[in-house]
């Protein structure tokens, strides 16, 4: 017969209300007649209630891993196992989902079956870094659960000082704004660095995130060390008839106040005939007007990505957003994807060799200065990396001319390349 349930007066209150209740789910598991996890979940509920009563957490870390890997498991041992013995081990397996988080119901059912056999029956879809979190395995079962998941085609994600699980937006799969193949980029990059993920040996965590356009639906700029954001170089595509339809629908005043006046670079101008001029040279690809007029406007056709490096959260020096390091990189041909991979490699190598222990790459850049970072990763300085040039006059400039020459040389080379190309075209 079922194990006696702990009193959970506080948690019970979280079963009320219209939103789906995780407590109800936990209880279902705790009372699952004859299931291996029922006892564990009963005590887990007990410990959680105890945390709610005492407003204190009772887990401590440790080391648990699967054969052949160093990371991917978040070990949890209870500090109140005396009271709640069956949940004394409650480890989480971080597992990478299909890129873009697409699932056939078959796949989901397989996950459930495996986790019912070897785990707690509790699965989080998904963690903030994009992992499927299989939460609640005993030390002994971790390997079993992994083996079966791995057989189905799943691999562990990242934890500790390692490459972390990545996320890519739905993008190409179901979004007209998408400027590159997110699935391909996501899988190409991560699968190229699996060793860094499975065998933590970096100074600290390193995250990639992939958004198909500047709307950044996976929060890449704030929340990843290496953000890949889709964009375009040519003119956006405009269907003036649809523009007129839109103006007709919302009215001129609304159009002016909500679209025209909202362009960050005043690149939009409403004509008296209700068509709209777009100053594409000064459009910064913010997406606003395109977002508002999905039928009338779309990104241009010469597409690629902008790469920002150094985003992270609050620890140690405070929140950082990524800084533009590569203003534009095409991402269509195999060579393009190789280029991206090579660059990612360069950055990770730099990070591995130069970051202090427990330092994120953004902190490293902060410490050594952007120009040293650029030199180290072999990227030429570009005005798109800054909001504006220096306002401080504290600067030693006796090598000004050499530095200026570098710029002029690069410009000349670009010009030459352009000419060559155009001649070849003739």
């Amino acid at each position, binding site marked *: 017969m079922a194990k006696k349930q702990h009193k959970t007066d*506080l948690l019970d209150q*979280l079963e009320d*209300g219209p*939103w*789906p209740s*995780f407590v109800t*789910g936990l209880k*279902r598991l705790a009372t699952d007649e004859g299931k291996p996890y029922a006892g564990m979940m009963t005590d887990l509920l007990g410990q959680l209630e105890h945390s*709610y009563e005492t*407003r204190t*957490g*009772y887990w*401590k870390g440790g080391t648990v891993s699967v*054969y*052949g*890997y160093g990371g991917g498991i*978040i070990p*949890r041992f209870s500090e109140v196992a005396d009271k709640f013995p069956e949940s004394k081990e409650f480890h989480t397996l971080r597992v990478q989902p*299909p*890129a*873009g*988080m*697409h*699932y*056939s119901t078959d796949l989901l*059912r397989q996950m459930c079956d495996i*986790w019912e056999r070897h785990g707690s*029956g*509790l*699965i*989080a*879809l998904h963690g903030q870094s*994009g992992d499927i979190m299989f939460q609640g395995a005993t030390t002994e079962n971790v390997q079993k659960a*992994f083996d079966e998941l791995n*057989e189905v085609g799943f*691999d562990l994600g990242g934890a500790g000082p390692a490459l972390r699980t990545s996320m890519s937006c739905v993008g*190409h799969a*179901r*979004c*007209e704004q*998408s400027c590159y193949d997110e699935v391909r980029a996501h*899988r190409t990059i991560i699968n190229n660095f*699996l060793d860094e993920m*499975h065998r933590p040996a970096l100074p600290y965590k390193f995250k990639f995130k992939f958004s198909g356009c*500047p709307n*950044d*639906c996976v929060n*890449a*700029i704030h929340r990843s060390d290496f953000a890949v954001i889709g964009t375009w170089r040519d003119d956006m595509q405009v269907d003036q008839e649809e523009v007129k339809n839109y103006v007709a629908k919302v009215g001129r005043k609304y159009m002016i*106040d909500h679209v025209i006046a*909202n*362009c*960050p670079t005043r690149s939009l101008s409403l004509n008296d005939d209700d068509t709209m001029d777009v100053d594409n040279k000064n459009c910064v690809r*913010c997406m*606003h007007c395109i977002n508002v007029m999905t039928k009338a406007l779309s990104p241009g056709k010469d597409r690629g990505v902008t790469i920002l490096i150094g985003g992270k*959260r609050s*620890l140690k020096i*405070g929140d950082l957003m990524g800084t533009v390091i590569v203003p534009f990189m095409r991402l269509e041909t195999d060579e393009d994807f190789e280029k991206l991979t090579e660059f990612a490699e360069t950055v990770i190598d730099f990070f591995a060799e130069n970051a202090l*222990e*427990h330092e994120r790459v953004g902190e490293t850049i902060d410490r050594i200065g952007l120009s040293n970072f650029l030199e180290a990763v072999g990227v030429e300085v570009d005005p798109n990396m800054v909001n504006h040039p220096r306002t401080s006059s504290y600067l030693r400039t006796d090598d000004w001319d050499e530095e200026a020459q570098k710029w002029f040389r690069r410009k000349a080379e670009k010009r030459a390349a352009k000419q060559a190309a155009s001649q070849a075209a003739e």
Partner: protein
Amino acid sequence: MSEAVQPRRPNETGVMDPFPHMHPLLKKNYGDWKWHDRLRPGVLHHVAHGGDEVWTVRAGTQRQMDVHTIRLLCDIADEYAERHVRFTSRSNIEFMVSSEAQVAPLIEKLEAEGFPVGGTGNSVSMISHTQGWLHCDIPGTDGSGAAKALMDQLYYEFTHEEMPNRVRITTSCCQINCGGQGDIAINVQYAKPPKINHDLIANVCERPAVIARCPVAAIRPAMVNGKPSLEVDEKKCICCGACYPPCPPMQINGPDSTKLAIWVGGKHSNARSKPTFHKLVMAGLPNNPPRWPEVAEVVKTILYAYKENARDWERMGEWIERIGWPRFFELTDLPFTKHHLDDWHGARASLNASAHIHF
């Protein structure tokens, strides 16, 4: 004997290929979508260049799901949709269907089973939350519980699109902030420097590592009743909590001292304005499970001030930028104190060095 069998080597398969699991229409029109609109809250309608159309129904989940809930969602997908779903970056589930006719019955079924349909467009989507007491080793509060408590109160705003623009709420159960930035962020705020449990230090802590972790060098080695321990210079300590993960005896959490703070105006998108960090507006709120009513009050006050006063397309932070912070504190009746003045590196950039004044 089984003891002898040698352990299985992992197949380092990496990120799983999504195409075998992707809805056929999404696979067919991969990279070829033309435009989209929304039929109603929770329903997206995407049209491909080729003319194909797909309807997506989005529903909220508790994220932390038991296998039964997941199987129930699969049953729904098999019967009312087309055996394919996806999850969003905010742990909502999406069902794709190839005809508009399927939308209504699907929604009806989802709602019947208790899954709210919404989270699209100008709604309040699911709160992105973190582990907390359920699983983390350094939490100041809970994650899933706080999210559930709040979403119960924001149910209407999830299922309706009546906000000026999307609203993204996040919670973080310690000051590390796994929850990320948000239009509204509810984060643990340590109220005072860590109390050191000296008995533990000696055994569990690698002292030089802990000392190195402190951003303001407030931690010094010290001998405490004969044992090597650490001490914290309270004048210097900025209560960041960085010393706690590597050294649990650095007890920064207290059942009563750990408070909650509310931040607003975080933004990830590049639409109109550049991405921004959220800003502190309220702190010192009690950590009051299971429903954190004091927090919910403040969140709703801010949310409804935004709903009533902001213009279409303005995100929370953009709205406040326009109306000005004085007006924000007036509309929400929250206090503005010296603690709102930033004093971390680069704080000068946050000072108003202009005659632009909001009266």
